[in-house]
């Protein structure tokens, strides 16, 4: 592999790689991009994600989107239809199963088979590659809302080819956000390169007048991720996508639970993305935002789960996120029933609609939190650019090698796992250990002071037990895990 650069893939190179990608599984042969462009142009406006997001962004509305996917297409249509009519979802997902995410299409095929036999889904999502372009189109055409692929696939090239040719108008993921939290042994160079292909493919459709949205996966490991860590990665993936011709980005953030920090995070995500995109000359790339409702552990009790869901939707609404990814009252149990999924949507819809005209007031605390996030991200991305000698892709690889970029609790061996996050007394996520994050001394002091104060309140030394307690806390109804009294 030649060394990775953040450079637009030339047509010939892209086409050559395409042949390889499309021949890696039989359904790849169904992809005819010119014909797919025509298909997209004949789709009703209802199916266009970019339109829906732009409209919501202008009206300062927060749209709702569930997660959902099952093994078989008819059941998928039925499920998504239910979430649309009964759950009043604004936007639809197709969540892809875990085998497909690992490119294990044979296993996915077996899952399809067993699901048919048993009459229930034995896969945790929809194996879109196995089903192929025509069946994806059947799904898209059966629904009156835009459909996005949501997954967790380090090498999503074939999945992107098939779902985009299949009429999906939004594709989630990125070379960092779908590798580091989702894989163990995939090198960043490989995944970044594979996602250049995905972005280049989106860029192709875009160049033909087909509006496709791209959404890096914001929450990463979904647990105690400091906003500056996920923001740095979101902005980087946005820059890499823009270079390949992507014109519409939705950048994401996973709710941490402290309202001021969450609102500060969503607001700064927009500001930072705009700042870095403009600096690099991508002024024509649009940015919207998504907040993911609480990604950590959930209470078993459904009434309590509704409380957690509502608090997520409240944060999204008060932060004016363009959309919110919705949890369900079955969250603690694994994959939810369609009724539970619809219930989570309805609760979230009620909140975002009740709070439509409200936002969090500017306050000294909010301003401070925003400044902090912006300075941290500037510190981190500044160092990434230095490491890459001006190249964001090379810089990303080197930054992970050196721990300048580092994701807490990630399974990947390409991640240093040197930072340790924990909550402060107000429940905001801070750093207990910095690893090699290049944060200014005064910022480090700020975080250390916050952790010290928590230690004083709890009468213990700041340490790993706080982290464990924080992770288990929500199941006990708390944000910050306090020692048992």
């Amino acid at each position, binding site marked *: 592999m030649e060394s990775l650069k953040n450079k637009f893939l030339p047509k010939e190179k892209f086409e050559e790689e395409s042949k390889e990608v499309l021949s890696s599984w039989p359904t790849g042969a169904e992809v005819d991009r010119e014909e797919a462009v025509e298909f997209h142009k004949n789709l009703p406006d209802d199916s266009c994600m970019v339109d829906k997001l732009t409209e919501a962004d202008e009206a300062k509305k927060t749209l709702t989107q569930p997660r959902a996917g099952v093994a078989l297409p008819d059941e998928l249509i039925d499920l998504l239809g239910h979430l649309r009519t009964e759950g009043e979802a604004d936007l639809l997902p197709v969540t892809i199963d875990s085998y497909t995410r690992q490119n294990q299409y044979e296993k996915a095929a077996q899952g399809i088979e067993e699901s048919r036999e048993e009459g229930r889904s034995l896969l945790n999502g929809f194996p879109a590659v196995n089903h192929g372009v025509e069946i994806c189109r059947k799904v898209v055409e059966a629904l009156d809302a835009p459909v996005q692929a949501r997954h967790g696939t380090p090498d999503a090239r074939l999945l992107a080819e098939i779902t985009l040719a299949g009429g999906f108008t939004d594709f989630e993921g990125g070379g960092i956000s779908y590798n580091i939290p989702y894989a*163990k042994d995939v090198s960043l160079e490989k995944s970044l390169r594979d996602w250049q292909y995905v972005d280049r493919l989106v860029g192709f459709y875009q160049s033909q007048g087909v509006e496709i949205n791209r959404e890096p996966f914001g929450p990463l490991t979904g647990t105690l991720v400091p906003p500056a860590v996920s923001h740095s990665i979101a902005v980087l993936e946005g820059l890499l996508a823009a270079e390949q011709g992507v014109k519409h980005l939705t950048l994401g953030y996973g709710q941490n639970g402290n309202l001021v920090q969450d609102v500060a995070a969503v607001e700064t995500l927009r500001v930072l993305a705009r700042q870095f995109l403009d600096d690099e000359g991508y002024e024509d790339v649009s940015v919207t935002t998504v907040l993911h409702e609480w990604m950590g552990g959930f209470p078993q009790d459904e009434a309590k789960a509704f409380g957690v869901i509502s608090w997520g939707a409240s944060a999204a609404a008060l932060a004016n996120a363009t959309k919110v990814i919705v949890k369900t009252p079955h969250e603690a149990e694994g994959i939810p029933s369609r009724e539970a999924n619809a219930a989570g949507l309805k609760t979230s819809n009620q909140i975002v609609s009740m709070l439509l005209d409200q936002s969090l007031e500017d306050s000294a605390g909010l301003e401070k939190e925003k400044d902090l996030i912006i300075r941290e991200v500037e510190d981190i991305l500044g160092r990434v650019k230095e490491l890459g000698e001006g190249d964001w892709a090379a810089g990303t690889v080197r930054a992970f090698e050196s721990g300048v970029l580092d994701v807490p609790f990630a399974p990947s061996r390409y991640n240093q796992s040197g930072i340790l996050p924990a909550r402060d007394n107000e429940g905001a996520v801070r750093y207990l250990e910095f690893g090699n994050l290049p944060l200014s001394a005064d910022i480090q002091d700020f975080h250390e002071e916050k952790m010290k104060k928590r230690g004083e309140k709890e009468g213990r030394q700041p340490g790993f037990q706080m982290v464990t307690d924080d992770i288990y806390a929500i199941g006990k109804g708390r944000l910050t895990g306090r020692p048992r009294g």
Partner: protein
Amino acid sequence: MKEQNGNDGEQDDITVVLGVIGSDVHAIGNQILERALEENGIKPVNIGVMASQEEFVDAAIETDADAIWVSSLYGHGEIDCRGLREKLEERGIGDVIMYIGGNLVIGKKSWEEVEKLYLDMGFDRVYSSDTQPQEAIDDLREDLSAAGDVSGG
């Protein structure tokens, strides 16, 4: 109980192979379990996420493990775990203690149903995803002590 649970500096020479089975990449609980085992004076052999049945069996044989702790958070556990007990038997360590914990099925089933499903597959104990590590550690000491594997305090 307290003496037995706390890390009093002595190692009990208990070894636990732990990992997340199948195509599952949920690393958080895995990292917390590892740390909790260490702090309880138990030796963790962590084969990490996306571990195959073979990796569990190999690691258990290589380290002469007292127990295998399987995690599964993504709903596919039912497929991933079938036949694991049989593999252990084939390789001559059929009597190793085996626990599983996590989000173990797709769809909402009663806990009794879920537990039975996995007990029938040959697991000795089954835990939901909100179990504190200490609970499984306490159970392990009890099971090992009942099996006579540990000389005790």
